[in-house]
């Protein structure tokens, strides 16, 4: 039986509360049948996302820390206990809400839906994307004629498959696929084998050279026409997308090729096969190897190049080569910052500024035990401290 206003008033009197000091509306609270409910704490952006009708997904293997993903962000999910009782009350109005009503009732009956002693807490975290690179590197794409493509035992991943194994939001995964220069081939995401990617790039740069085009105006249709007989059209277009910016001019599709990206790739290619180089020699060969008209600069190597068959960050290779003789024997202050597990075994990263004249701004050295193995350029150090790159 529901409480009546008269009963409420009687209780008020017994409690010696004066009706004149209270709002005219009272709420009678009753326990509902009881329901299992969870409380999820939201940051305002997530709240707005739910109000817009978007879903969230909890992802994780049984032995992993669960994460919660929205369309574009990843959060660590933890259960926070509270010693207080949290009651969820539908239909309960605050004085503010009552004030907005034209004719507030004198009694509202509200039923408690459920209660909890804890709630789910979210903490924004870095998406777990290293697994993405690892999985895709197991089966790199070497071209349609490669015997690898005939082997049905090799694992391939569609977008849905990736969402099933990577603890990250869809947008973070797609963004990372772009960074990896991954290509969707036959519905599956593939990372290109480096030599194959260079082969495609060489076809394009040689064509640009033979046609005397400007690097900022490379016509897609002619590329496909001329290079189509050599490589699949999708791969030529993919190469142009990775190394250039697409635009349309008078109905024709063109690509503006990025000198920085092409010079970096060339450096990577040279260093991959290098045994030893000194800095000056490397710079000379490098400049000669890039397409005519492009200018190389050590600044282009600042971002780590991190695709290598044996998982080493290629920056190590570049920087080993750039080891300048005048650094040997120089006493520099050392501050061990991080311990890295790498293909070279355990090493320590020591951070200290470079001597004058080597580079224009402060750079970092990565040392394997006491031997100075290579430099880590400043941007790499920032990336390492953000813990988003594997070394």
């Amino acid at each position, binding site marked *: 039986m529901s*409480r009546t206003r008269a009963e*409420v008033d009687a*209780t*008020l009197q*017994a*409690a*010696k*509360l004066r009706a004149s*000091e*209270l*709002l005219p509306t*009272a*709420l009678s*609270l*009753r*326990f*509902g*049948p*009881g*329901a299992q*409910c*969870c*409380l*999820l*704490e*939201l*940051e*305002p952006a997530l*709240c707005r996302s*739910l*109000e*817009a*009708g978007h*879903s*969230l*997904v*909890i*992802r*994780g293997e*049984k032995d*992993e820390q669960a994460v*919660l993903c929205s369309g574009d962000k990843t959060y660590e999910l933890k259960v926070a206990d509270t*010693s*207080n*009782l*949290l*009651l*969820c*009350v*539908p239909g*309960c109005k*605050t*004085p*503010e809400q009552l004030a907005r009503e034209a004719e507030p009732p004198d009694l509202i009956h509200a039923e*408690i*839906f*459920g209660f909890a002693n804890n709630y789910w807490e979210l903490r924004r975290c870095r998406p777990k994307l290293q697994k993405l690179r690892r999985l895709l590197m197991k089966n790199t794409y070497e071209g349609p004629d490669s015997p690898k493509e005939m082997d049905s035992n090799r694992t391939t991943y569609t977008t849905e498959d990736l969402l*099933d*194994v990577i*603890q990250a939001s869809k947008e973070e995964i797609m963004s990372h696929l772009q960074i990896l220069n991954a290509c969707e081939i036959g519905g599956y995401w593939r990372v290109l084998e480096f030599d194959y990617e260079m082969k495609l790039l060489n076809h394009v740069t040689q064509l640009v050279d033979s046609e005397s085009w400007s690097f900022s105006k490379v016509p897609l249709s002619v590329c496909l026409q001329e290079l189509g007989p050599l490589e699949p059209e999708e791969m030529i277009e993919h190469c142009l997308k990775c190394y250039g910016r697409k635009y349309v001019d008078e109905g024709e599709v063109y690509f503006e090729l990025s000198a920085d990206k092409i010079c970096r790739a060339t450096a990577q290619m040279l260093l991959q096969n290098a045994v030893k180089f000194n800095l000056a020699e490397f710079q000379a060969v490098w400049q000669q190897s890039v397409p005519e008209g492009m200018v190389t600069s050590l600044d282009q190597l600042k971002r780590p190049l991190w695709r290598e068959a044996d998982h080493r960050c290629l920056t190590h290779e570049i920087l080993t080569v750039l080891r300048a003789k005048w650094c040997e024997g120089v006493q520099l202050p050392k501050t061990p910052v991080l311990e890295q597990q790498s293909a070279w075994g355990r090493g320590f990263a020591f951070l200290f500024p470079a001597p004058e004249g080597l580079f224009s701004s402060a750079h970092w050295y990565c040392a394997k035990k006491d031997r100075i193995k290579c430099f880590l350029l400043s941007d790499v150090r920032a990336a390492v401290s953000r813990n988003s790159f594997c070394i």
Partner: protein
Amino acid sequence: MVQIVISSAGAEGLAEWVLMELQGEIEARYSTGLAGNLLGDLHYTTEGIPVLIVGHHILYGKIIHLEKPFAVLVKHTPEEQDCDELGHETGTTRYLVTALIKDKILFKTRPKPIITNVPKKV
């Protein structure tokens, strides 16, 4: 990997509830449990202070607008009928966002006992 979807009906389907936070525990007087029983009466003073009368106690609280709202999630587990012909479960565990909570009423002061008047002798 497990993927559990938390789906939302969007602003049209999401009610706004209020959270009441109480210290301690609530016990039913009788062994029949809490369901269906009255908790108490909630009033507001003219200054907007919530007053809760539970049994023989009065509690004064305050209304807090939550910086981080809560979503109330209700779990849906696959039912027996969610099976295909081979008897495999086609449904997966999901959560449904039933409501959002943007305000809470916090009662953390010690409850004051209500002393009822001793009836006067006639």
